[in-house]
C-alpha cells in the first residue's frame, strides 16, 4: 500500500506538492511501525533496544520536522520565483504593447510634422512671392508718384525742342532771304541764332532722354551693376521729379527746396537706380512730412527741404583712408517721434494712413545702402522741428 501511495504521489502532478509530506512523515511512520512490530513480537528485545528505538524515533521525528521546514522554504522561494517570472512576462507584454503603440504614435507624429513642414514650406513660398510682389508694388507705387513729375519734366524740354526747331525753320527761310538780298551780315547773325537754338534743342532733347532712361531704370526689377555716377546730378534729378510729382498730385502743396552740392565729389561707383530709389524715397518722405505740417497752418511756417552732398575725406576722419560721400536730406517737418525712431527702418512700419504707404520704403532703402553698397543710413531728428536722413557711401 505504501508503494502504491508513493507511486501515485510521484505519478500525478497535483500531488507533487504533497510529496515532501512523504519524505517527512514516511521515515517516522516506518520506524514507528518497525518498533511496534518488534514490541509485539519480542518485548524483551524491545525493552533491551528501548533507548535505541526511542532515539531512532526521535531522530525520524526531527528529520520529519527538518524536511518540512526545508521543503516549505524551498516551496516559498519557488513560488516567489514563479511569480517573478509571471510578472516579468506580463511586464514584457506591456512593454512590447507600449513599444508598438509608441511606434504608431511616432509614425503619426512624423506624418503630422511632415505635413506641417510641407504646409510651412508652401506658406514660406507664398510669403516670398508676396514679399517680391510687395517690393515690386513699392517700386511701382513710387513710379506712380514719379509719372506726374516725369510728365512735367518731359513736356518742358519738349516745349523747347518743338518750338526752337520751328523757330529755326523760320530763321532759315529768313536767312535765305537775306542771302538772296546780299545782306550777309544779317544772314550771319541769323546763322548764329540758329546755331544757339540748335544747341538748346540738343540740350533739352538729352534732358528728356535722361528722364525716360531713369524712369526705365527705376522700374527695372533686376538689380543693376555699379557704375560711376555723378551723385549730385542724381540727387538733383530725383529732387525735381519728386517735387513735381507731389505738386501734380496735390495742388495746394507748396514747399521750398534748396540744394548744397559739393562739387569736389568725383563720380562714385553705385547702382544708379537703387540709390535713385533711396533718394526718391527720402525726398518723398521729406516732402510728405512738410506738407503734413503745412496742414496745421502754423503762422510763418515755410516748408523747406534741403539736399546736401559732402565729401568725407581725410579732413574729417584722418584714420580712415577710405573716401566717403555723405548725402543729407533734411526737412523742417514734424520730425520722427522718439517712440517710433527705432522702428522706422523695419519692414512694413509706416505712420501714413492705410493705403498711403507700404511701410517698405525705408526698409528697402536701408537694405540698399547697407547691404548693397556697404554704406550707412542714419537719421537725426528733433520732434516737432524736422528730420535729417544721412546716407554715407564709400566711393570705392
Amino acid at each position, binding site marked *: 500500500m505504501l508503494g502504491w501511495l508513493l507511486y501515485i504521489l510521484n505519478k500525478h502532478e497535483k500531488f507533487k506538492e504533497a510529496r515532501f509530506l512523504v519524505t517527512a512523515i514516511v521515515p517516522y511512520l516506518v520506524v514507528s511501525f518497525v518498533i511496534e512490530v518488534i514490541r509485539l513480537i519480542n518485548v524483551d528485545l524491545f525493552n533491551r533496544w528501548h533507548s535505541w528505538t526511542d532515539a531512532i524515533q526521535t531522530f525520524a521525528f526531527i528529520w520529519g520536522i527538518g524536511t518540512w521546514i526545508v521543503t516549505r522554504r524551498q516551496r516559498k522561494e519557488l513560488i516567489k520565483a514563479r511569480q517573478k517570472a509571471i510578472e516579468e512576462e506580463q511586464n514584457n507584454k506591456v512593454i512590447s504593447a507600449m513599444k508598438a503603440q509608441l511606434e504608431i504614435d511616432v509614425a503619426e507624429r512624423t506624418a503630422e510634422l511632415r505635413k506641417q513642414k510641407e504646409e510651412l514650406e508652401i506658406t514660406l513660398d507664398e510669403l516670398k512671392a508676396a514679399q517680391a510682389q510687395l517690393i515690386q508694388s513699392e517700386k511701382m507705387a513710387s513710379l506712380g508718384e514719379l509719372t506726374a513729375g516725369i510728365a512735367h519734366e518731359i*513736356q*518742358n524740354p*519738349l*516745349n523747347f525742342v*518743338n518750338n526752337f526747331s520751328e523757330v529755326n525753320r523760320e530763321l532759315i527761310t529768313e536767312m535765305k532771304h537775306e542771302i538772296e538780298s546780299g545782306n550777309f551780315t544779317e544772314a550771319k547773325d541769323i546763322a548764329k541764332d540758329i546755331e544757339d*537754338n540748335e544747341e538748346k534743342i540738343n540740350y*533739352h532733347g538729352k534732358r528728356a532722354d535722361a528722364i525716360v532712361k531713369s524712369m526705365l531704370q527705376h522700374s527695372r526689377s533686376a538689380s543693376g551693376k555699379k557704375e560711376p555716377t555723378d551723385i549730385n546730378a542724381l540727387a538733383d534729378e530725383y529732387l525735381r521729379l519728386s*517735387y513735381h510729382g507731389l505738386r501734380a498730385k496735390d*495742388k495746394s502743396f*507748396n514747399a521750398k527746396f534748396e540744394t548744397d552740392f559739393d562739387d569736389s565729389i568725383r563720380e562714385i561707383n553705385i547702382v544708379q537706380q537703387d540709390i535713385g530709389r533711396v533718394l526718391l524715397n527720402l525726398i518723398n518722405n521729406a516732402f510728405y512730412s512738410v506738407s503734413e505740417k503745412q496742414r496745421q497752418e502754423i503762422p510763418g511756417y515755410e516748408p523747406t527741404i534741403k539736399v546736401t552732398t559732402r565729401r568725407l575725406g581725410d579732413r574729417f576722419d584722418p584714420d580712415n583712408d577710405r573716401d566717403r560721400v555723405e548725402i543729407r536730406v533734411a526737412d523742417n517737418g514734424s520730425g520722427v517721434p522718439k517712440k517710433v525712431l527705432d522702428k522706422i527702418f523695419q519692414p512694413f512700419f509706416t505712420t501714413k494712413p492705410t493705403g498711403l504707404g507700404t511701410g517698405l520704403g525705408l526698409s528697402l532703402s536701408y537694405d540698399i545702402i547697407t547691404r548693397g553698397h556697404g554704406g550707412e543710413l542714419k537719421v537725426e531728428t528733433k520732434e516737432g522741428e524736422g528730420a535729417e536722413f544721412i546716407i554715407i557711401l564709400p566711393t570705392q
Partner: protein
Amino acid sequence: MKILVVDDERDIEVLFEQRFRREIKTGEIDFAFAYSGEQALDYLNQHVHEAVLILSDINMPGMSGLELLRHIKQKFSHPPPVVMMITAYGDAENYSQAMRLGADDFLTKPLDFSVLKEKLKEKVQ
C-alpha cells in the same frame, strides 16, 4: 502791349524773344520775365498797371502759378490784368482750378505759338 512771362525754365526767355521777334521789333509787344511767382509779384508791385497780360507757368518751386493767379486777381483788380496759365499738366483738375481762380485762358506745353498769338490778339481786342 506789355506781357509778363512767369516760368522757372530760363530758356523760356530766349524762346519768347525769338518766337515774337517780329512783334518785338515793331514794338507791338514788350516782354518782361520773372522766374518765380514771388519775382512776378515783386515786378507787379513795382510796375503797377504796366503789364496788361500775364502768362504764367503753374509748376514752379515756391509759389505756384495758381497761387500767383489768386494773388493777382485779389490785389490787382483795377483793372484786372488778363492772366493765361501755361502748364505741362493738361489735366482737368488743373484746368478747373485755374478757371475757378479766375484765369482768362489755359494753354498746355509744348506750347503752340500760333495759337498763343491768336489768343493774344483776341484778348487785347
